[in-house]
């Protein structure tokens, strides 16, 4: 079942035959959305990032043999859980990485726990993964909803965006995003003037946008995701909302969305990310190598997170000389400080949350952008200590217990 050994992915990052030492074998599965709305955020780009991580690691550690496979969960929790079961039981996969779509990630989280394997989340947003549903077999690597909502909400209020209006997708995820961001805005002295809920996957935002416009709020928070975010930003540009002086705050927007929208449409959008390809030389070097697999595209923070997570995972496996016991590997990963070219030095908390700084970014105007992929200017850096939900607030049973 979904043996989905993507031709490209099946490529096992091979090692040296004929070496004398006992080899440790690890099998990593990239479970992602390969074909639909999240495939540019994670997808084949995550496979490419994992491949680079494996190549870099095995170049220095020749006694580890790593195999890599990829799978498409089609954004259905049941498909995802089948693949995960099959991978663990039949294909002997040791670790699953990436997995955008919180529903799928929560399902894989439970399967991984019951089979004592390793789950490294980069693509999924739900902060429940390190909250109520945290697991000794899971690490949430790149970002989460709390991180994005808090980053964008707090930073905007502090820089003068103190009145907000929410455009919320009418389902649990949208409500949670709206609630969390609203709380942050009010805690920092801002005010929520109103909100409007739109149906999921809608095409016509005009009436909602007009309400947002007439609210005179300084910031319009987009508590939605994927196609809804893209559509609302496009239509907001048609109504001249940003030109009229209001800012749009994307609460779940990725570099790939900005690339898809184009700068003329997306300009002025404010968002939070934990990694941006053009931030420093190491990131740019990685991007160049990554683009050999994905020409013309730019890596998202999710894909960079896959690289970083796989690197740290392999380090822990190399120390233990075995990937069999998921809990032991995760414990080792938590014990070792993280250090890799993309996210720099960091740590993993007891609840499975990887800690690093986040950046408040603003999409450039077309005339400010000098080369392809020159999307953002950095408005603020959120230090690692403030970027994620405090340990005590998550109510993770691993911490209190």
């Amino acid at each position, binding site marked *: 079942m979904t043996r989905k050994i993507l031709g490209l992915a099946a490529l096992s990052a091979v090692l040296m035959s004929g070496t004398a030492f006992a080899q440790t074998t690890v099998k990593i599965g990239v479970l992602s959305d390969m074909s639909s709305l999240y495939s540019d955020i994670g997808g084949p780009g995550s496979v490419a990032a994992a491949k680079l991580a494996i190549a870099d690691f095995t170049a220095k550690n020749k006694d580890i043999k790593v195999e890599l496979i990829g799978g498409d969960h089609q954004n259905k929790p049941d498909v995802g859980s089948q693949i995960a079961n099959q991978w663990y039981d039949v294909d002997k996969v040791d670790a699953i990485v990436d997995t955008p779509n919180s*529903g799928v990630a929560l399902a894989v989280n439970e399967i991984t726990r019951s089979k004592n394997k390793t789950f490294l989340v980069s693509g999924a947003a739900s902060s429940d993964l390190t909250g109520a549903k945290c697991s000794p077999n899971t690490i949430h690597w790149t970002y989460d909803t709390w991180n994005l909502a808090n980053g964008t909400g707090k930073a905007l209020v502090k820089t003068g965006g103190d009145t907000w209006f929410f455009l919320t997708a009418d389902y649990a995820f949208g409500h949670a995003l709206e609630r969390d961001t609203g709380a942050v805005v009010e805690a920092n002295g801002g005010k929520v003037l109103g909100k409007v809920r739109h149906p999921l996957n809608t095409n016509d935002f005009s009436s909602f946008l007009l309400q947002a416009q007439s609210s005179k709020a300084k910031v319009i928070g987009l508590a939605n995701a994927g196609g809804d975010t893209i559509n609302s930003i496009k239509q907001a540009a048609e109504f001249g909302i940003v030109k009229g002086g209001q800012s749009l705050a994307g609460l779940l927007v990725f570099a790939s969305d900005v690339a898809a929208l184009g700068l003329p449409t997306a300009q002025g959008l404010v968002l939070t990310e934990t990694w941006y390809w053009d931030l420093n030389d190491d990131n740019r070097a990685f991007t160049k190598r990554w683009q050999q697999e994905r020409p013309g595209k730019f890596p998202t923070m999710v894909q960079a997170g896959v690289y970083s997570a796989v690197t740290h995972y392999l380090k822990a496996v190399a120390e233990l000389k075995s990937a069999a016991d998921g809990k032991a590997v995760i414990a080792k990963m938590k014990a070792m400080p993280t250090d890799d070219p993309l996210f720099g030095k960091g740590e993993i908390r007891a609840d499975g949350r990887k800690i690093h700084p986040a950046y408040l970014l603003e999409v450039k105007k077309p005339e400010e952008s000098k080369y392809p992929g020159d999307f953002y200017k950095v408005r603020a850096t959120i230090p690692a200590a403030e970027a994620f939900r405090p340990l005590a607030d998550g109510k993770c049973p691993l911490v209190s217990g």
Partner: protein
Amino acid sequence: MERVLDPIATSADRPKARAEVVAFVVMVAALIVAPFFLYPLFLMQALCFALFACAFNLLIGYVGLLSFGHALYFGWASYLAAHAAKIWGLPPELAILTGAATAAVLGVMAGSLAIRRQGIYFAMITLALAQMMYFVALQVPFTGGEDGIQAVPRGFMFGFLDLSNQMTMYAVVLVIFLAGFLFIHRIINSPFGEVLKAIRENETRAVSLGYKTDRYKLAAFVLSATLAGVAGGTKAIVFQLASLTDVHWAMSGEVVLMTLVGGLGTVFGPVVGAFVIIAMQNYLSAFDQWVFVIQGVIFVVCVLLFRRGIVGEFAHLLRIKL
């Protein structure tokens, strides 16, 4: 009244019944051996869908009612079964029964509205009601919205069968499937089933013979919904998960596809259809979105070239009834 139909049907069916028995034995034997060669979880999924398709076939194949909202019963049963097992802490057998009961109640409600109309109107009403309940599932808190209900415990069947063991779980699913299958077989070969077939062939004539066809249709509808619910509840326990996928209209479409590919109005058709479609989705998934294209092509080929479905054509070729 019903007695009159009975002897005619059985005498005509006698030589054909033997083929059915042989086919049944082959199927059971194959399903008992299968988990030693194929991944049990895949088989369990296929069995759940096979039961679902059989339940659907009861309605379209034997009463001629095309319900386009069967995901409603399947999906809501899986939600309620998952909720019962996880939150109320019920053992799996009671959780599945909770799911089935939910589906029965929904079946009574949707059925009593829908059977008042025929043909495309019937299909549209069932679809509309199913979509309505889809959005309810998206919104109400207990379903977990797009995250679904996760980490449903499999628990102990009857207090002593440990379902966390894959083979035990498989055996339980197989028994549930076979029970459902035989129950459906019993229904369609009973006097009640003969009346259903009479309604399918010519409802006006059935009315003129004095049958209250609405009651028969409603009963068949509720039976079908309930069995779909058993399948949905079982799936929730097997996968420890209930999600929006199962209440989505695409699921209603999928079960139509399974039944058509296997063979409409044949006892074994939906089972074969379910295995074919599920196997395709699983083993062809390396082709990404092409799976759906391939599925579409197969559907078109089926409708154009062998309209009786795989089992239907096969039975026709051998002049037997399956």
